[in-house]
Each structure stands twice: as structure tokens, then as C-alpha cells.
């Protein structure tokens, strides 16, 4: 069958769907990725073919443009989480209305049998309804978007739907959820589980990842946006937190330009260029991260306790849920995140309290009981045949 996978123009919104795409391909199906040039590039980087539509979106520049100098999102926000999530959903809802007709043309030409959309991609259900095919919504991970943040998205697109001859904004046929149920936000609409697979792009295995090291290794990964959004101050606090932790080694993934901003590092801290997490996490005892879905799911798959320092949008929900399950700790205010002593205390607790290791192992076990992507593919084949 032919499967069209659509994503908003943010690479990290797309990557949670790569395992499903690869499973579809491995089962012999045709897969094309639909999105703006950033998404076509990300698709090609995963070995998938794409149909680029429109111009590059430059999401990072957009986000950065709204921030005063030296101020990162958590410092600039109002603290009203629901309002922040709603506002983000509105961006993508508006975006969908601009792309909808070009996307419909693509679907009319390529004639997919199934649509797959990520969490924030709102054209998918409309395209599917016009083509008379099922649509799968694919969550990224911990998902606080249900309820008010999403409520108005459908309403906004209703007039466009009616002009297309549809009764209203269509519902998703299936909701796929890679997040283990106990980690998911309570009250989130139940989805069909799909076992998470860590996919963070291609890359070269670094030599040091093969060396066990004498100390406990902690991976610090702040994702693709945090540092660029005035996150250097946060990084400095994290580095300072490791200073003096004698039996701990920190490996921090960062672009070279950010590495340079930090100058000299403590002995037990090293920078590495961005590297796929699946090459690193196997040799680590814990992960410090920003709560981004890809990193959160990767750490969960590897069964590592997590220290989450959320900055923006759904990262706060990820932090709360990691802490709630006991699989890690959350430091959720800018003041505390910028305090090396607070971070150091949390790192010690994360590494020394066996409950976090046990809970993280429990989450990992939970993921292994979820249906593998190949099984989900079989279910989707049946859905399409119906």
C-alpha cells in the first residue's frame, strides 16, 4: 500500500514517525514523506523519499526572534502552561490552512492508501477525508496537547473543510502512542501503543563510546533547539554542577559553536559533536535533558534514569511525568535550573537513589511489552483493506 506521512516543518516533530516509516518500508510498502524542505531533508537522512512542498520554515529563527537577548523561553514565558500549549497548537493550525491545497494536490496525484500525521500536523485528517482513506495520528511521546490546546484547531479549519464538501473537521481514525502508558499524561486520550524505537539520525560511532570509562557516565543532551534559544547560561550551570562530582563523568552533546562559547571545562566533563543517542546511551548511567520527546523516549528505551530541565511547551509535561513515575527527577523553574548546587543535588540523588534506576528499568520493560512497529504495520494493513 501507499502511505503518505506528513509533518510540520520541525525535524523533531517528524523523527518519532521514522520507525513506523521504516517498518512500512521493510514490509514492502511504498512510503513518501510530505512536508517543507526541512522535512524532506530529514526524510532523506533516514533513507526515505519525500515530496517537498513550499519554502523552508526556519522554525528555530522564528522562535529565537521572539526572545530578548540572553533570555531563554522558560524565562520569557508567562508560566501559564495551557496557554503556551494552546498558542503553539494555533501556530500549526494556521500553518495547515496555508499548505492544505498544495498537499491535497500531492495526494490527488500520488493517491495514497493511508495518511499518517504527527501530533501537530493538521492537514492529514482533511486530506484523508477528501481521499476517502484512513488517517493515523502519531504522538511524539508524553502528550499534554489533548483538551483545550487542540480544541480550537478543528474549529478553525472547519470552514475550509466545508468548502471541500466535508461535514466538519474530521477525526483521526487511529491514534498511535509510543509513550508507555504509565509515563503518559493521565487523562490523555487512549491510543494504540507502538513500541518506541530510538531513532536520532545516522552517525559515526565515537571511539570513546566503546571505552567503559572509570567513572559513571552521564549523557547531557539538550536537543536541537535549547542551546540556540539562548540556552548557554543553562549549559554553564549544568557544567558547573558536574564540577566536583568525583566519580561521575559528563558527556555533553553540543554543536561546535556552542562548545566554543563555554571555554575551559572541569576535568570530568567533555563535549562531543551531536551524535545519535543510540550510539552513546548504552555506555551511560543516566541522562540529563530538556524534556524533548525524542530524547525522553530514547532515554526510556535505554532504561536510564533522567534529570529533566524543561524549557518550552510539552517538555514540562515530560518532566512532570518522569518525576511522577520515579524514573527520574525534574527541575522546573529557571531559577533552580540556573543554580549549579540544585542541579548537583539532583544529579547525586538521580545516581545514588536506587529507586530511580529501578523505575527506569520498569519503564523500559514496559516498552518491550508494547507491540513492535512491524505488528502495528499489520494492523494498519487490515485497516486499509477495510
Amino acid at each position: 500500500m501507499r502511505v503518505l506521512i506528513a509533518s510540520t516543518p520541525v525535524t523533531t516533530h517528524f523523527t518519532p514517525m521514522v520507525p513506523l516509516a521504516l517498518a512500512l518500508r521493510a514490509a514492502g510498502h511504498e512510503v513518501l514523506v510530505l512536508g517543507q524542505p526541512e522535512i524532506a531533508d530529514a526524510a532523506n537522512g533516514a533513507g526515505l523519499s519525500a515530496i517537498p512542498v513550499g519554502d523552508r520554515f526556519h522554525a528555530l529563527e522564528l522562535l529565537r526572534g521572539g526572545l530578548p537577548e540572553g533570555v531563554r523561553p522558560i524565562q520569557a514565558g508567562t508560566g501559564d502552561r495551557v496557554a503556551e500549549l494552546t498558542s503553539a497548537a494555533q501556530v500549526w493550525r494556521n500553518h495547515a490552512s496555508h499548505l492544505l491545497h498544495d498537499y491535497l494536490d500531492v495526494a490527488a496525484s500520488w493517491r495514497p492508501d493511508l495518511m499518517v500525521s504527527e501530533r501537530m500536523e493538521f492537514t492529514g485528517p482533511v486530506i484523508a477525508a477528501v481521499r476517502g482513506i484512513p488517517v493515523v495520528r502519531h504522538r511524539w511521546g508524553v502528550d499534554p496537547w489533548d483538551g483545550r490546546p487542540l480544541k480550537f484547531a478543528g474549529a478553525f479549519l472547519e470552514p475550509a473543510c466545508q468548502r471541500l464538501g466535508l461535514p466538519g473537521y474530521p477525526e483521526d481514525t487511529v491514534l498511535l502512542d509510543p509513550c508507555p502508558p504509565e509515563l503518559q499524561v493521565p487523562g490523555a486520550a487512549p491510543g494504540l501503543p507502538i513500541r518506541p524505537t530510538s531513532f536520532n539520525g545516522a552517525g559515526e560511532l565515537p571511539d570513546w563510546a566503546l571505552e567503559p570509562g572509570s567513572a559513571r557516565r552521564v549523557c547531557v543532551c539538550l536537543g536541537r533547539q535549547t542551546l540556540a534559544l539562548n540556552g548557554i547560561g543553562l549549559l554553564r550551570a549544568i557544567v558547573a554542577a558536574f564540577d566536583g562530582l568525583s566519580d561521575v563523568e559528563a558527556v555533553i552533546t553540543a554543536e561546535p559553536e556552542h562548545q566554543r562559547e563555554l571555554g575551559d571545562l572541569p576535568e570530568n566533563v567533555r563535549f562531543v559533536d551531536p551524535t545519535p543517542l543510540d550510539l552513546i546511551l548504552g555506555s551511560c548511567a543516566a541522562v540529563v535533558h530538556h524534556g524533548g520527546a525524542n530524547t525522553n523516549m530514547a532515554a526510556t528505551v535505554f532504561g536510564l534514569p533522567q534529570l529533566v530541565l524543561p524549557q518550552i511547551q510539552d517538555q514540562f509535561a515530560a518532566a512532570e511525568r518522569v518525576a511522577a513515575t520515579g524514573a527520574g527527577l525534574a527541575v522546573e523553574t529557571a531559577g533552580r535550573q540556573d543554580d549549579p548546587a540544585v542541579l548537583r543535588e539532583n544529579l547525586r540523588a538521580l545516581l545514588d537513589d536506587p529507586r530511580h534506576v529501578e523505575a527506569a528499568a520498569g519503564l523500559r520493560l514496559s516498552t518491550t511489552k508494547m507491540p513492535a512497529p512491524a505488528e502495528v504495520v499489520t494492523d494498519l494493513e487490515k485497516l486499509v483493506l477495510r
Partner: protein
Amino acid sequence: MRVLMLSTPVATHFTPMVPLAWALRVAGHEVLVAGQPDVTAAAQRAGLCTSTVGDAFDAVGFLSIRYPEGKRPLQVTGRPSVDTMAEHSKVWAVHADIHLDAYLGLARSWRPDLIVSEQYECAGPVVAAVLGIPAVTHRWAVDPLGEPTRRAAEELLTGTCRKLGLPALPVPDRILDPCPPSLQVPEAEPGTPIQYVPFNGSADLPGWVSEPRTTTHRMCVSLGTATLALNGLPLLRAIISAFDGLDDVEALVTVEPRFHDALGPVPRQVRFVDPTPLDLFLHTCDAMLHHGGAGTTLAAIRAGLPQVVLPQVLSMFATGDALASAGAGVVLADPSEQDDPAAVREAMRKLLADPGYRAAAVGLREEMAGMPGPVEVVAELEALAVKGG
């Protein structure tokens, strides 16, 4: 489990294993592709993680030194004998010997549970035997080279094996075979079938794919990545000329823009397109003309296309013969026939006029569809890894 994949340093030797690598990844296994930069670059383009060993080989650069200006390999060496093929395989055994220590070092650190090598790659079974884990060999397609490759590897690697404490060159525990069984050469050792899933690289879907066809027939002409680079332009010119006078047939020729000028003006119904993954557009064609490369042949079969084959080197001859025996293709094996537009035109006319060729191609496609897919093979590999080497 951890799976280490090895390949000789040619991208198209590696890419047949990509769908299996994907199936392993989405089943929750870790996959690492180790090899020279030619391989690891291709693996990264398929979204895979890599460990680079040794220097770039550049097979096309290596081969083009041997051939005088204007002459392609087939014109210089003629149809290869079994002994020629054994000679050719030695290059890969030498590569295996040179890089064996590096592969062993990597494997001892990374600790795979299983090693998968493409059909020419000789180090995999040695490393696996030293580590006491299973080794699997992955064929590309029609494979007359198994026996000659093994002989060359034995000759060149037995000494090294003994130094590593192995009594002899080890044999792989499984051979995975994507070739439809009815097409495989009779002397090939029976393998475990694995259904062909196309991976010919990734690209942006070109607009021309959705343009409706204006002729009754559309023949894809694709000579693969190396053929043109090895003095293959005169051959392509002859093929293009062959379309002149063929009624109602459009030729869709994949060729890099840098070769356009040298090919000169073309008949009205011949259209050049940039090299594009075959799986994106073969469904718009009803026949194919190619060089008999493994990936191209299996892609054409999967699309149910009757084929004209102009073999150039090595296993392409056995591939062409197998397709002809199956009634799914017409082969022009003689270089002077390949260079004669009239002969090529006649072969194409014959292929398009007789529906038997297409019916046979569709039969091969059905045989292919009945083979277990990569996902099922993963389950078998898991069981093999648990059992041990």
C-alpha cells in the same frame, strides 16, 4: 541484540542489506555498519549508524585505470569465465585480510551477537568464528560467484585464520537469498529466502513521475551507477539510437546531467531524467533495458517488467541468462551486438511484441511476493543468535 553489518567498499554491494537493517532496527535491535568510507557513507544515507574502518576505495576510479580510452570492460575482457571471476574475487579477499584486525578490534569492543556480510565480504565469518557468534551472508541476487569467491578467500585467508586459532576459513551459518528461487543458478548453495524490498537511495519525488504517458509503451533505460563511468557512453549512444524507428515507445533514460552533452542530440521519443530511485517510477514503465546489475534486476522483477539485458561484467551474464531461461527477458551478450542500434532495436521490438515476456516477468514477481519478508527473517536471526555460533 547487536548486529554488525559488513560490506566490501562499494555502495551497491551494501544497499541490498538496507531493508534487513531497517527490519532489525524497528524490532528493537542495534545495527552498526562497519566498513570503508564508501560503505559507511551509503549506510548513513540510509539512516544507519556506522563505524568507519580504513580508507576510501573508490571502485570506479580503481577500475577505470585498467580500461583504455573509449573501451568498456566487456570489450577488453570479453565474457568472464569462472576463473576470471575467481581472480576478480581475490581483490575482496585481500581487502578482508587488510582490514581484519580493525574489524576484530571493533567487534571485541562493541560485542555484536551476530554478523551479517554481503556476498563478497569475507572477513565477517572469520570475525564471527573468533568471537563465537553466528555469521550470515546476504546475497544480492543471481549468484554465480559463491564458489569462486570462496576459493579465493580460502587461498588468501587460510593462513590468517590459522593464526587466529581457527582450523580453516569458516562457513557462514546462513545464506540469505533475495533471488526468486527459480532464477538462482543451480550450483548456488541453497539459501534462506528473503523477499526483495527495494532500496535504491532516497530522493525527492520528481514531478515527471505523475505526468501521464503519451505513448503506448515506456521503456526505462538504466545502466546502473558504474557502467557509464567506465567508458559506457558509446554503449548508451547506441541504445538511444535504437529507439529511432521504434513506434510508440518512449525511452526514459536515467543519466547524470554531466553526460548529456557527450550523448548528443536524441530522437524525439527519448527523454533523459536524473538518476532517480527506481522504486519511485518503475510502475510508470512497461519494460526495462539494463545492464543486469543485481539491484536493477530485482527492482524490474518487482515491478513485473519484461527486460532487455546487456550484461557488462561478472554476474550480469548469469543474470541475463537466467532471465532469458525464465522467458522474462532478451539478452544481448556480445559487445558488438550491444553496440549495434539495429540489434538493440530488434531485441526491444521482440520484447514488446510478445506478451509472453511480460507474463513470465509477472510470474517472477509473484514468486518474489511469496518469499518471507525481512521482518520474518529477523525472527529467524534472533533464534540463530540465541543458539550461538
